[in-house]
């Protein structure tokens, strides 16, 4: 398949949907691509009652002429103005060559995972991870769940799981109570968020809420049976069926980096119109800073309007967006990781789950790249998406440079990408032959 779009939006979360809808108002031919089977991104996932804003934006999308490509992931950027995508459907590996004049990257964020003994056991998942599995049909009623990690996601997940009939036995937030109190005060000018927090806590009121507390081990034979929690110098075991543990979010930067966008302090640098350092490439939502759904929608709208050259309409929204800047900073401070979490892994704890690389072999390397070459850490199918954020925190390594493809793809798709690059070079193929084999 080969298609051309005036404006192509990657990521159909709140930011991407808003960008595509506003861009299409101008009559431009707009494409919206996402690797999930349906629009909504992380927060507007099916399987839960959607809030009014979500229903509203999805209805606008349904009514728009936007060309939707659900179930495709972008894996390469073979030439300027071209992206390659591969189908994520069960039974085909079709490749698509997508040409664009303007590109909006709305690739969102993923959870940060920190390794600790037992974290590779089945039924130890991310907080958003278990939530997504439940929305995807995993029965949770009557199951005992410990929710742990850091960030506002924990309460949202606990509330949703409790609503679905789970017994949330404990919620463990690594941040100390003082920092959370300061964050709550900062929120007082955002009454909507305060109410949401109160509602979430009410919904999960039967669970113990511990601050300055985290799991130090997940225990069980073949599958999870209990977790060991630690707070100050106290340790205790809690029996459970699932541990939902995520340490806030990290932006999905692979695609922006692949396109050459400048990264500043760990996020994509944009100007007031969401324009990145690469002309014609805009970015909106979590990759520019973790700020939640309202900010993602605003940024998406600004990016969509700016990509369609409707700057005058966008300028009204730029003012609104500035109100969120304080929130983004306050949230980042509130969820800052306790340095003690660096001592979580034991020598044998696996850090890279794809290649089963244990913690003890990773000491002594100076960068992710160095460790990757010598230990295969970050070499597997996830391409360092899980262990990269962990090693950054554990060892202070910077992010590895991104080489195509940003996700493993089949040989036929890689060949198609090589053709699209318009040259005979098989660089991409050669670089990845090894990785694809490890799948």
């Amino acid at each position, binding site marked *: 398949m080969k298609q051309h779009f005036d404006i192509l939006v990657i990521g159909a979360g709140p930011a991407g949907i808003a960008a595509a809808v506003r861009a299409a108002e101008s009559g431009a031919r707009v494409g919206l691509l996402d690797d999930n*089977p349906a629009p909504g991104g992380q927060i507007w996932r099916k399987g839960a009652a959607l809030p009014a804003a979500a229903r509203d934006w999805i209805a606008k999308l349904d009514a728009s002429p936007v060309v939707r490509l659900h179930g495709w992931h972008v894996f390469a950027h073979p030439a300027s103005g071209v992206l390659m995508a591969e189908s994520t459907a069960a039974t085909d590996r079709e490749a698509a060559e997508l040409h664009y004049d303007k590109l909006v990257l709305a690739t969102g964020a993923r959870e940060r*995972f920190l390794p600790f003994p037992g974290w590779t056991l*089945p039924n130890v998942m991310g907080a958003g991870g278990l939530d997504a599995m439940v929305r995807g049909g*995993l029965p949770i009623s009557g199951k005992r769940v410990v929710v742990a990690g850091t960030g506002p996601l924990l309460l949202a997940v606990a509330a949703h799981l409790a609503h679905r009939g789970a017994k949330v036995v404990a919620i463990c937030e690594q941040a100390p109570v003082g920092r959370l109190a300061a964050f709550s005060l900062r929120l007082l000018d955002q009454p909507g968020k305060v109410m949401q927090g109160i509602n979430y806590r009410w919904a999960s009121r039967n669970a113990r809420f511990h601050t300055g507390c985290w799991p130090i081990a997940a225990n069980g034979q073949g599958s999870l049976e209990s977790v060991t929690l630690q707070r100050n110098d106290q340790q205790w075991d809690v029996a459970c069926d699932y541990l939902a543990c995520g340490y806030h979010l990290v932006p999905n930067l692979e695609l922006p980096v692949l396109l050459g966008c400048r990264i500043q302090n760990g996020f994509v640098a944009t100007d007031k119109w969401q324009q990145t350092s690469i002309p014609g490439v805009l970015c909106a939502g979590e990759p520019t800073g973790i700020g939640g759904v309202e900010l993602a929608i605003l940024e998406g709208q600004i990016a969509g309007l700016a990509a369609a050259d409707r700057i005058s309409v966008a300028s009204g929204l730029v003012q609104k967006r500035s109100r969120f800047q304080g929130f983004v900073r306050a949230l980042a401070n509130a969820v800052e990781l306790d340095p003690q979490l660096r001592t979580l892994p034991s020598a044998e704890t696996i850090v890279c*789950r794809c290649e089963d690389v244990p913690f003890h072999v990773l000491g002594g390397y100076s960068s992710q790249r160095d460790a990757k070459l010598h230990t295969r850490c970050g070499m597997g*199918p996830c391409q360092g998406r899980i262990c990269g954020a962990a090693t950054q925190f554990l060892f202070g390594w910077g992010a590895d440079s991104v080489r195509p493809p940003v996700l493993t793809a089949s040989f036929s798709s890689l060949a198609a990408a090589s053709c699209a690059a318009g040259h005979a070079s098989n660089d991409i193929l050669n670089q990845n032959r090894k990785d694809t084999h490890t799948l």
Partner: protein
Amino acid sequence: MPDPSISLLVNGASVSVTPGTTVAAAILMSGPRARISVTGEPRAPLCGMGICFECRATINGFAHRRSCQVLCEPGMDVRTA
């Protein structure tokens, strides 16, 4: 809860799920793991969102599909390691 209305096979055993259920959820309903790691550990979904590749399984003969990104369809044949 609506009646389960999709039947598929996970490692040869029939599993019934409601429409909209992911293959990863169907795998966990029928057993504790999705794959065996390179050192022989059992593994199951971690991220639920297509990032970690811990949920990969063979679906209708296609190997290494991320099962959390695929919805169940009637008669699907899913195999885990």
